[in-house]
């Protein structure tokens, strides 16, 4: 373990309508075995004791699965490491004297709430449009009734690994949510259980995504690079196919 000192330039904004600006803080000595969020904890403890408001940032599980954390560090959502959430990014990846610019995820569809916190309820709204199989509790057939080939189940799980953190939107030059929507549509369209609502799902979820103000996919693959779960853009391609099938060959509107 060693100690490093960093300069932190953090976006501070007291509310959605307030004027925001970067504030510069010296981190003080930071252990390289700390996680990025623990580094922010240390800063916050100091700020509180000095009477300044702590930097607001979202976080919860701190083991890379809940999808709550995420900020843009030096231009990269979740920081420089690949397949890593911000809470799993450790300070040993930075050097003494580094300057870190920490910004919130920026997108029209993710309204800023405070400092580094944004409102990602748009993702919930998209899921509500069809990111499910319409089965009520009870009355379902035995789990082994429909065999699903192992590779198909694995592929569905690859897509279902999405943690809904929003890094794909943050990373996309166009703030598009195609990777998020593509992952959910893929997960369900690959499985037999998802077939009955397949067309309607693709249409409704895309419609909602557009309405919420996300941008358009430019096939630039930034989302795939930023995704902490490594979700592939092949899921976007599948969404493109699903949407086309639904538009051209189904009766769904």
């Amino acid at each position, binding site marked *: 373990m060693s100690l490093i000192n960093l300069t932190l*330039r953090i*976006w501070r904004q007291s509310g959605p309508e307030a004027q925001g600006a*970067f504030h510069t803080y010296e981190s003080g000595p930071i252990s390289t075995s700390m996680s990025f969020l623990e580094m922010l904890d240390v800063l916050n403890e100091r700020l509180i004791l000095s009477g300044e408001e702590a930097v607001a940032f979202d976080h919860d599980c701190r083991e890379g699965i809940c999808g709550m954390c995420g900020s*843009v560090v*030096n*231009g*990269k959502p979740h920081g420089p490491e690949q397949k890593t959430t911000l809470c799993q990014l450790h300070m040993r990846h930075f050097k003494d004297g580094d300057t870190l*610019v920490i*910004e919130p995820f*920026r*997108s*029209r*569809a993710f309204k*800023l709430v405070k400092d580094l916190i944004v409102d990602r309820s748009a993702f919930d709204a998209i899921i509500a449009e069809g990111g499910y199989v319409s089965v009520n509790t009870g009355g379902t057939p035995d789990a082994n009734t429909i065999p699903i080939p192992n590779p198909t189940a694995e592929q569905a799980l690859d897509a279902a690994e999405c943690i809904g953190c929003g890094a794909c939107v943050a*990373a996309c*030059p*166009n*703030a*598009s949510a*195609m990777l998020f929507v593509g992952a959910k549509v893929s997960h369900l369209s690959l499985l037999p259980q998802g077939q009955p609502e397949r067309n309607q799902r693709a249409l409704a979820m*895309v*419609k909602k*995504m*557009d309405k919420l*103000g*996300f*941008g*358009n*996919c*430019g*096939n*630039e*693959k*930034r989302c795939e690079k930023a995704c902490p779960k490594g979700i592939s*853009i*092949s899921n*976007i*391609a*599948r*969404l*493109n*196919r*699903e*949407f*086309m099938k639904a*538009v051209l060959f189904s009766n769904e*509107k």
Partner: protein
Amino acid sequence: MSWFLSVFQSSIGKKYIMALSGACLSFFLMAHLAGNTFSFLGKEAYNSYAAHLHSLGGFIHVLEACLALVFLAHILTAILLFIDNLSARPTRYAVSATDRSWSASTMPYTGALILIFLVVHLLNFHFASKMISTADQVKTVLGNPPLGFFYLVALSGLTLHISHGFWSLFQSFGANHPQYNRFLQRGGLSMAVILGALFMLIPLLALTTDGFLQ
């Protein structure tokens, strides 16, 4: 009609237009290039190719009209997408990522450059007075250093544009599979480079070789 509108108002629908029109434009480029190669065979061959093309009469006008429509669709949709995408992130990042792909990130700009080039190119050839032979026209226009250089720059832009566009149109249509992804990506890139190089060879020869098209 409402079905059509609702589909093509959607984000994915717009991508289909871009991809479909992009595919048509790629075919046009290939055909155009095939025609251009006559220039390497000499003045005679080139002029006779031009004459043959013009002799098609009505058919060629129909093709031109279609092409114009495709161009229009590609350009208008691109403008819509550009504006929409700009407004999707009202506040920009203070630090932007430095490792973006060149070809993808410059699509709107190379697109705009190609549009300017298109106008210049049409003025140079399509709407130019037909007093001299096509071969002479080529030699005069492209042999003029400022114009020739502009052609080279614009064609590099075109190369960059299609190097992303080729692969991208397949992705937009949902063609993405580990079996052929490498082929699509490499094939797209090679196509772009070959296409660009062959196109650029003409102004290059016109600028540097006196005997070209003589």
